[in-house]
Every structure is written in structure tokens, then in C-alpha cells.
């Protein structure tokens, strides 16, 4: 809980002064709070939960017990030191605020991981650590190695994160909940479940990638391109321990089985030995430490795999011991790098004189790494060896384990020797490398954990620490664990083995020139590169399938639809309607329908047959009108009305668009028609057959009982005062739909406008470049219609009258929308049609000049705003948005029968307004004469130039 509060606060803390000492307050605070919280809980646990998505049974919850406390205190404690250290490391870097922000964010995420109370919360924080770690590794993003290393880390740990999520979902499903309490109580069920191995595999994979187990370890050395404070913190003490924490946390639920034992032991041991061996081969000091970390993580994984009390004792000691000495060593590596400018072992040497304190620190931490007394690392190794020789294992495996541990311990001693001797003793290998001591605060940071490393081993009064460790180990083990921290336990097998390991290590170290090769070897990086390269190639081939030809896409879609239909159909016919052509009771209706269907199809075929585009567009209009006839006999008068007017409008728009295409282009395109493509015909026939069949099945088999329609029919009059049920559905029952619809329609208008005016201008399309910069004197030239032909005055007179008539018709439609066919859509489109006629007859300029009040954007905003305002007012009256209210009745307006001043009426007005706005935008843009405009613009420009010339003379 305490950590949480700090975490929340910390996220919002401004990182201004951002220097180590100041910022270390935050981890210090959480350190104090975590400690305090631990003191409060003692051997119980704290948990807290908040329902996040109750429907999906997802919570944000936290769980704090001894194991959490162990890791949490470690994260916060090392965090304090790292921030102080980082303050010095970045002392002269103004840009480092970013680094500290990332580091604090990471710290919060890491604390989140260890106090998370369920798998989902844990996953969130887990991914958070992956991402913040990516940011930290890529901090020096100008270097390619940093970018590559960061990507590698994110790729591998992110992949592990996905596995963890999948595993968590399985686990939560089996256990019946995601929180740890539930999971622990279901341990038996989980282990007996048939999907146990899936859960185990996925979760272990997630943990292994995070904790850099072989073969996923390759990201850790690559991540060494991070600034050293980050490496010291993330890649030694904290982030890589997240996987260990996860395994330890779930051990009571998942552990104890044969597969658990073998999986963790094998991976752990392999990682331990290979990490220790490769560590020796490194030239880079940080690389050496990274491999040594990998080795130690292998040890910890191995320990969790064991099902003995002493293993968990070894685990907690190992975690803390490693965190202490490894962070100290990393910080020292950073100091050496910082003060000498290099961290290559082949260049360093003899720094003992120039950097005495660092030397002392490295010796202490290095001895701990080597596992020699009296350091904490010795204790860790002792307990580890004790685990391996524990009598519960079979003899053969036991000896294999022991051998592996001894070998690894010997290698580690060599590593420690390299760090201590090769860096500080002797003479510098490269004479140019000279060091001097770092500021005291920077040295103090690694000194503290190094001292602690020794202190835990030496100080006599360690009962409190031992109890705490014991509790943490119990939480992971699931049973009582007694931890004693005595260094001397008498002469026993572990001690003898330890001696053997030290001796072997010393011998190896003296022969190191033979052992160390430092050359390019085969590694799992090749696999990684191969996988990435393969993905690139796959993506390349996948994009090759995009031919760019519409017919190919449509063909694929049609075939896919056929396959889907055949698959889902499974060769059993649903019971179809009786096979009869006509229904006797409505014979006259059916005859009209038949006629309209025949006209529809005939007109549609005509659009193909006709050679000229203009003719095809007219035939298209005929299709639309025939559809309207079919609608009228449905009987659906409202729909038929809208269909008629929209069809006319669409024809007008198409003609306008046709006019804008250059004539020679059109002619060239028309000649293409004569070629009949069999592919095209095949696709069309296939699609048509499919749709016909599907329609037949759908129309004849679906239950002819609607769920909502009866409700609309009964309550239309009562609730909205509308006789026209369709109208009531549109403006009242489904008013929100309609609001969205008119918005979409208006957006279409704005989209056309934008496409032509701005997008086109940006790309230098000539006709769009001509804006409204006409001289008024040129208006006389404008008595041309579209197509630049003069129009007879009689026609002009008629057209002039059409607009007011259309306005009146539209008004009636709006007023009586609830009582008779027609509504706001129809009204809007009728008015728009009249305007469209003006564009056709008078031409663009003249229309714009005479209809000065026609402001498309204004109409659109008026429409949308009116709906919202009406909706809000009726919410004030009725209590919900877009309620139906009869305002006329409310304020007592005397209105004739059938005419209403209601929210419905206002809605109709709004629809009409938005439609008029949208359509006139489209007309305005498409109706802008291209060639003529250019011509006139040039004329105007010439006139203007002439005037300029006159002026200058």
C-alpha cells in the first residue's frame, strides 16, 4: 500500500532539478514505507483490490507479504544508491532529466510487479518494466548499438510478456480467478489439470526471457549499451529478478511437480555454467558482469526448481547477495569507464594507485562474487552447495548438479579475479589510460552495498535479518523455512566442496591466458538475427500479393465468400418457403414488383451496354427510379420518396463530375469498354449467383417475426405523436442514429470540399489552384451554364422559380413529417435539387452570386447544433437526451390540425439543414468549372498585369 502511494505520487513528480540526491528521496520514501508496511504485517499479508472491469472479472489488486517485501526493499534500496550515483554520473549532462524520469518510472513499475496482487496487474507492470527498460537502454539513441540492444531487449522480453499473458489467462481460467490467494488455494486443481503443462510452459517462458535464461539471454549483454546506472540497476539488481520473483511467487501453486523440477533445474544449470564460462571470455568489463549476472540468474532459477527447504533459503540469500555485490561491481565499472574513458580489460590495468577507494570496493564485491569468506556471496554459495548435496535427490543427478555448481563457482572466481587483478594490479596495458578517483558520493554508492555484503556475513546480531529472510522464503516455498546466517557451520560436505571450487578457480585463474580466447564465436544471436531477417522477408513477400488491381481483390473476396458459404452450409438445405412465383392475395402488387424488377435489371444492363458515359449515367438514374417503384409497392412511401430525390441528385452529381474530367481522357477511357474481360464477367456472375442464392434463403427462411417492430407500431402515436411510424423511428426512437447519420453526411460534404480545395492545391493540381479571386467586373462573363454553353432565358426564368417552390415543398415535408410520407431528408434533398438545377443552368459564378445566403458550412453547423440543442432541451423536460417533446402544446401555440412544433419538427429542420449544407458543399466543389475557371483566371491575371504596367509607366 505504501509503495503504491509513493508510486502514484512519483509518476506525477516533476523532474526538474533532477539530480541524484534530491530524487533519491522517492525511493527512500518507498523504502521507508515498505519497511514500515512490513513491520505492520509481520507474518501476515496486506492485500487491496479495486474492480477494474468487473464484467470480465478483472481487478487491479495488490498483495504484500514477506516475499514482496524482500524484493521491494531490494528494489527501493538499490534504487536510492543508483539515483545518488546517477546524479554524479550525469553531473554535466543537461539532457539527463529524461534519464531520471525513465529510471523513476521503471522503479515504479518494478515495485508494481512485486506488490501486484493478481496476474493481470502483474502483467501490466511487467510490460511496464519492459518498456521503460527499452527507453533506458535506448537512452543514447544516437548510437546504433544502443538502438539495436534496446530493440533486442524489447523484442525478447516483450515476446516473453505475451507468453506470460497467455499463461496467466490459462492459469486464471483453471483456478477460477486471477488473484494470488485464489490461485494458491487451487494448487492441487492446477497441477492435476490437463492444461498444466501449457500454463507451466508459457509462464516459465515469460520468466526465462525476463531473467535472461539460455537461450533468451542474448538481450542482456546487448542491453549493456545502456548508461551504467541503468545497467547496474536494471540488469543486475531488479528487472532481471522479475522473472525470478514470478517463479518464486507462483511456486506454491505451480511448483513441486516433476516437470517443474526438470524444466527449472535444467535451464537453470545450463544458464549457470554457460553464463559463467562466457563471462570469462568478455573483454568489456560490463559484458563480463552481464554474463556473470546471467550465471547467477541461472542459479536462482535452479533453486526455485528444487522442492527443498534449504533451496529457498539459498534463494533469498542468493537474491540479496547478488543484488548487493553486482550493483556495487556495476557501479565501479561505471566509475572506471567514467574516469578512464574505457572499460576494456585489454586496455585497463594498474589502477590501484590512482583509484584506491574504488579498488577496495571492487575487492570486497569481487570476493563476494567469487564466493569467498567472509562475504555474503560465500554464504550464498554454501547454501547453494548444500542444496545440491541434499539427500532427497538421486545420486546421479545429485552429483551432476554438484559438479555443475562447482565448475560454475570456479569460473566465477576467475571472473572476480579478472575484475580485481587485471584492472587494478600490474601496469596498464594501454599507457594512455590513466584514472583518478571519482567524487566521494559516487564511490560511496557502491561502497554501501559492498560493505553490506560483508556486514551480513560478519555482524553477529543477524537474527532480525534471518527471520525476515525466513519469512520471505516461506512465502515462496509454501512451508516453514528456517534461515540461519552463520558463516561457520562446522566441517561438512558443502564446505569441502567450496574449498574445492576455490582451489579449482585459483588454478584456472593462474592459467587464464590459456582459457581466455576472446574471439567471435557462434551464439544464439545468430538465431535472433535469422528470425528477424526471416520476418522481414516474409513481410516483403506478403506485400507482393498486393497487385493494386481492384478486380483481383474483388475476385479474392468473391471466392472467399463462396468458400465461406459452402463451409457454413454443410450441405443441408434449410426448409425454404413454398416454391411459388406469386402470392394470390397480393397479385396486383406482385405484378408491379415484377415489372419494376425487370426494369431495374434491364436499365442496369443498359449501363454496361451504352458506350457513352453520359448515357450510362442516365440509365443509372432509371435503375434508381425503378427501385423507387419497387419500394412504393412494398409499401414504403417514405423510402420511395427519398429514393427518388436522392437518385436525381446522384445523377446531377455524376454529371457534374463527368463534366470535370477532360474530354480526351473520357474518350480514351470509353474505348476500353469494348474489350470484354472474361475474368470480369466471371467474377460478376459468381457474385450475382451467390447473392441471389443468399437472398433467396434469407428471405424465405428467416422467422417473419420482428422483436421491436410491434413496439414501434404500438407506441409511435402515444409516445411521439406521430402517425408515420417510419418517421417516428427515424426522428424519435432512433434519434441518436440519425444525429450521427447527418454528421456523417455533413462530413462527406466537407470531405469532398477538402479533397478538392486543399489536398489538390497542395499537390499543385491546376484547377484547384484557382480560388475565389475573380474580379466582379468579370461577372458578366458568367452567363454560361455548365459546359460553357449559353442557356435560354425562358429556361432561366423557370429555374429561378423552382427554388422557392422547392423551399415551400420542403417546409411542408418538415412540418407534416410525422403525419404523412416525407421527412427532413426528403425536404433537404428537394431543396438541394433545386440548387443543383441552378448550378446546371446558371453556372457556378452566377449561382454563387445570387444565392449569397447559401453558406454550406453554416447550414451544416446549424443542423448538427440544432439537434444537440433540441436534444438537451428535451433532456431538461423529459429527463433523457433527444426525448420527444411537443413544445407547441407546452407553450400553447395555436397551430392548425396535424401541424406540430415539437422536438421532432426541430429535428426534421436540422436534418434538412445539414443535408442542404452537405449537398451544396458537394455541388459547389464539383460544380466549380475547371477549364473555364482557368481561362477566366488567366484573363483576369492578364488584365491585372496590364493595369500594373500602366501604373508603372
Amino acid at each position, binding site marked *: 500500500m505504501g509503495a503504491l502511494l509513493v508510486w502514484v505520487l512519483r509518476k506525477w513528480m516533476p523532474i526538474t532539478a533532477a539530480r541524484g540526491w534530491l530524487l533519491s528521496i522517492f525511493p527512500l520514501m518507498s523504502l521507508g514505507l515498505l519497511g514500515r508496511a512490513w513491520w505492520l504485517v509481520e507474518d501476515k499479508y496486506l492485500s487491496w483490490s479495486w474492480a477494474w472491469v468487473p464484467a470480465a472479472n478483472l481487478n487491479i489488486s495488490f498483495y504484500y507479504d514477506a516475499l514482496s517485501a524482500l524484493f521491494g526493499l531490494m528494489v527501493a534500496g538499490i534504487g536510492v544508491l543508483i539515483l545518488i550515483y546517477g546524479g554524479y554520473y550525469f553531473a554535466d549532462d543537461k539532457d539527463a532529466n529524461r534519464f531520471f524520469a525513465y529510471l523513476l518510472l521503471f522503479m515504479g513499475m518494478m515495485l508494481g510487479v512485486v506488490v501486484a496482487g493478481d496476474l493481470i496487474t502483474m502483467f501490466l507492470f511487467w510490460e511496464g518494466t519492459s518498456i521503460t527498460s527499452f527507453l533506458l537502454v535506448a537512452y543514447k539513441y544516437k548510437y546504433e548499438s544502443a538502438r539495436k540492444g534496446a530493440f533486442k531487449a524489447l523484442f525478447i522480453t516483450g515476446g516473453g510478456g505475451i507468453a506470460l499473458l497467455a499463461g496467466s489467462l490459462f492459469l486464471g481460467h483453471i483456478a477460477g480467478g486471477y488473484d494470488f490467494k485464489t490461485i494458491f488455494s487451487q494448487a492441487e486443481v492446477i497441477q492435476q489439470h490437463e492444461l498444466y503443462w501449457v500454463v507451466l510452459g508459457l509462464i516459465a517462458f515469460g520468466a526465462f526471457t525476463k531473467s535472461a535464461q539460455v537461450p533468451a539471454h542474448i538481450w542482456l549483454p546487448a542491453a549493456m549499451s545502456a548508461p551504467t546506472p541503468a545497467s547496474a540497476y536494471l540488469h543486475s539488481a531488479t528487472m532481471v529478478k522479475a522473472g525470478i520473483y514470478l517463479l518464486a511467487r507462483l511456486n506454491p501453486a505451480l511448483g513441486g511437480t516433476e516437470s517443474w523440477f526438470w524444466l527449472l533445474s535444467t535451464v537453470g544449470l545450463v544458464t549457470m555454467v554457460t553464463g559463467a564460462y562466457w563471462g570469462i571470455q568478455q573483454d568489456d568489463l560490463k559484458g563480463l558482469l552481464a554474463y556473470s549476472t546471467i550465471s547467477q540468474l541461472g542459479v536462482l532459477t535452479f533453486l526455485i526448481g528444487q522442492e527443498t527447504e534449504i533451496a529457498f533459503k539459498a534463494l533469498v540469500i542468493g537474491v540479496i547477495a547478488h543484488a548487493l555485490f553486482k550493483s556495487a561491481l556495476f557501479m565501479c565499472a561505471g566509475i572506471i569507464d567514467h574516469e578512464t574513458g574505457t572499460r576494456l580489460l585489454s586496455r585497463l590495468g594498474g589502477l590501484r594507485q590512482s583509484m584506491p577507494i574504488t579498488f577496495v570496493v571492487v575487492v570486497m564485491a569481487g570476493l563476494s562474487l567469487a564466493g569467498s569468506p567472509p562475504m555474503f556471496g560465500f554464504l550464498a554459495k554454501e547454501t547453494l552447495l548444500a542444496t545440491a548435496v541434499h539427500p532427497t535427490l538421486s545420486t546421479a543427478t545429485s552429483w551432476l548438479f554438484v559438479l555443475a555448481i562447482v565448475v560454475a563457482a570456479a569460473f566465477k572466481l576467475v571472473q572476480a579475479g579478472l575484475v580485481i587483478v587485471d584492472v587494478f594490479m600490474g601496469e596498464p596495458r594501454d599507457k594512455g589510460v590513466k584514472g583518478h578517483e571519482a567524487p566521494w558520493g559516487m564511490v560511496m554508492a557502491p561502497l554501501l552495498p559492498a560493505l553490506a555484503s560483508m556486514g551480513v556475513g560478519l555482524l553477529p546480531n543477524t537474527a532480525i535479518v534471518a527471520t525476515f529472510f525466513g519469512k520471505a522464503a516461506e512465502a515462496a516455498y509454501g512451508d516453514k523455512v528456517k534461515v540461519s546466517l552463520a558463516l561457520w557451520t562446522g566441517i561438512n560436505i558443502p564446505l569441502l566442496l567450496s574449498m574445492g571450487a576455490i582451489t579449482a578457480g585459483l588454478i584456472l585463474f593462474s592459467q587464464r591466458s590459456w582459457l581466455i580466447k576472446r574471439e567471435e564465436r557462434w551464439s544464439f544471436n545468430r538465431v535472433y538475427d535469422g528470425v528477424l531477417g526471416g520476418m522481414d522477408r516474409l513481410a516483403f513477400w506478403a506485400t507482393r500479393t498486393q497487385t493494386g488491381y481492384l478486380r483481383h481483390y*474483388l475476385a479474392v473476396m468473391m471466392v472467399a465468400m463462396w468458400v465461406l458459404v459452402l463451409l457454413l452450409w454443410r450441405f443441408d438445405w434449410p426448409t425454404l418457403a413454398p416454391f411459388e412465383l406469386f402470392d394470390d392475395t397480393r397479385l396486383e*402488387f406482385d405484378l408491379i414488383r415484377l415489372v419494376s424488377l425487370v426494369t431495374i435489371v434491364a436499365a442496369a444492363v443498359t449501363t454496361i451496354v451504352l458506350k457513352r458515359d453520359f448515357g450510362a449515367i442516365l440509365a443509372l438514374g432509371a435503375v434508381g427510379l425503378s427501385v423507387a417503384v419497387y419500394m412504393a409497392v412494398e409499401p414504403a412511401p*417514405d423510402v420511395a420518396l427519398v429514393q427518388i430525390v436522392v437518385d436525381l*441528385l446522384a445523377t446531377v*452529381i455524376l454529371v457534374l463530375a463527368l463534366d*470535370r474530367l477532360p474530354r480526351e481522357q473520357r474518350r480514351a477511357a470509353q474505348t476500353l469498354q469494348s474489350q470484354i474481360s472474361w475474368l470480369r464477367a466471371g467474377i460478376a456472375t459468381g457474385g450475382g449467383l451467390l447473392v441471389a*442464392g443468399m437472398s433467396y434463403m434469407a428471405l424465405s427462411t428467416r422467422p417473419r417475426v420482428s422483436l421491436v417492430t410491434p413496439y414501434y407500431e404500438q407506441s409511435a402515436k402515444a409516445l411521439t405523436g406521430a402517425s408515420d411510424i417510419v418517421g417516428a423511428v427515424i426522428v424519435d426512437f432512433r434519434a441518436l442514429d440519425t444525429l450521427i*447519420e447527418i454528421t456523417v453526411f455533413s462530413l462527406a460534404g466537407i470531405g469532398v470540399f477538402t479533397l478538392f480545395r486543399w489536398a489538390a492545391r497542395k499537390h499543385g493540381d491546376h484547377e484547384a489552384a484557382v480560388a475565389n479571386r475573380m474580379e466582379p467586373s468579370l461577372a458578366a462573363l458568367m452567363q454560361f451554364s455548365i459546359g460553357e454553353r449559353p442557356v435560354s432565358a425562358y429556361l432561366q426564368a423557370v429555374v429561378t422559380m423552382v427554388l422557392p417552390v422547392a423551399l415551400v415543398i420542403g417546409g411542408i415535408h418538415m412540418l407534416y413529417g410525422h403525419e404523412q410520407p416525407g421527412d427532413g*431528408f426528403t425536404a433537404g434533398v428537394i431543396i438541394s435539387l433545386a440548387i443543383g438545377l441552378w448550378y446546371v443552368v446558371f453556372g457556378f459564378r452566377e449561382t454563387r452570386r445570387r444565392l449569397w445566403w447559401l453558406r454550406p458550412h453554416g447550414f451544416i453547423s446549424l443542423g448538427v447544433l440544432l439537434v444537440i440543442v433540441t436534444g438537451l432541451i428535451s433532456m431538461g423536460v423529459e429527463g433523457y437526451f433527444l426525448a420527444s417533446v411537443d413544445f407547441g402544446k407546452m407553450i400553447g401555440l395555436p397551430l392548425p390540425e396535424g401541424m406540430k412544433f415539437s422536438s421532432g419538427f426541430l429535428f426534421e429542420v436540422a436534418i434538412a439543414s445539414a443535408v442542404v449544407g452537405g449537398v451544396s458543399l458537394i455541388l459547389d466543389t464539383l460544380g466549380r468549372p475547371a477549364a473555364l475557371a482557368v481561362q477566366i483566371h488567366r484573363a483576369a491575371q492578364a488584365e491585372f498585369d496590364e493595369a500594373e504596367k500602366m501604373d508603372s509607366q
Partner: protein
Amino acid sequence: MVLLTSIGIGMLFGVAIYQMLQRNVIRSAIGIILLGNAINLFLLAAGSQNGLVPAYDKAKDVMPDALPQAFVLTAIVISMGGVAVILAMLYIVSARYGTGDLDEINGLKH
């Protein structure tokens, strides 16, 4: 009638697809409008009742289903907006490439 309607819708759909596949820009636009008509017809025919009189309150006889009618009404208007946008895009693209032949417009492919 169900059978005849289905055949009609299917044929209209087939013609629409054929037109959409034409290389001529304007024919493609025609195809899209035809497709919209076919779909609207289908929706309307799929209403739950076969009406004899329009859907009005206190109608004397069987009413057609009002809900698909409302949907189709909305769809008609929306599809006109969509057609306008598609036309604008077709026009812009074909103007930039200086051709009305869709097959020659392939600069977006790579």
C-alpha cells in the same frame, strides 16, 4: 415472389460488380451506386411482414415492417454522401495521373 426478388437482386448485384471492375473511372462509380441499390433492395425485402398498406398508426390492414424501412432510408442518404466522396477521390487521382483508366493508376502500389 421471393424467388423473383432474389433473382432480381442477384442480377443487379452481378451487374454492379461488373461495372465496378471496369477500367473506366466513371463506370466504377456507377458500379458502386448500383451496389448500394442492390443492398437497399435486399434490406427492404427482408422486413418481417409483407405489408398491404403503408406503416401508419391505426392502419386498417397488414403493415410492412417499419424498422428496415427506416434503415434503408438512412442508408440511401448516407450512400449518396459516400458516392460523392468516392467520386471526388476518383477524380483527384485520375486528374493527377492524367487518365481515366484505373489500370494505369498504380503508383500507390509500391
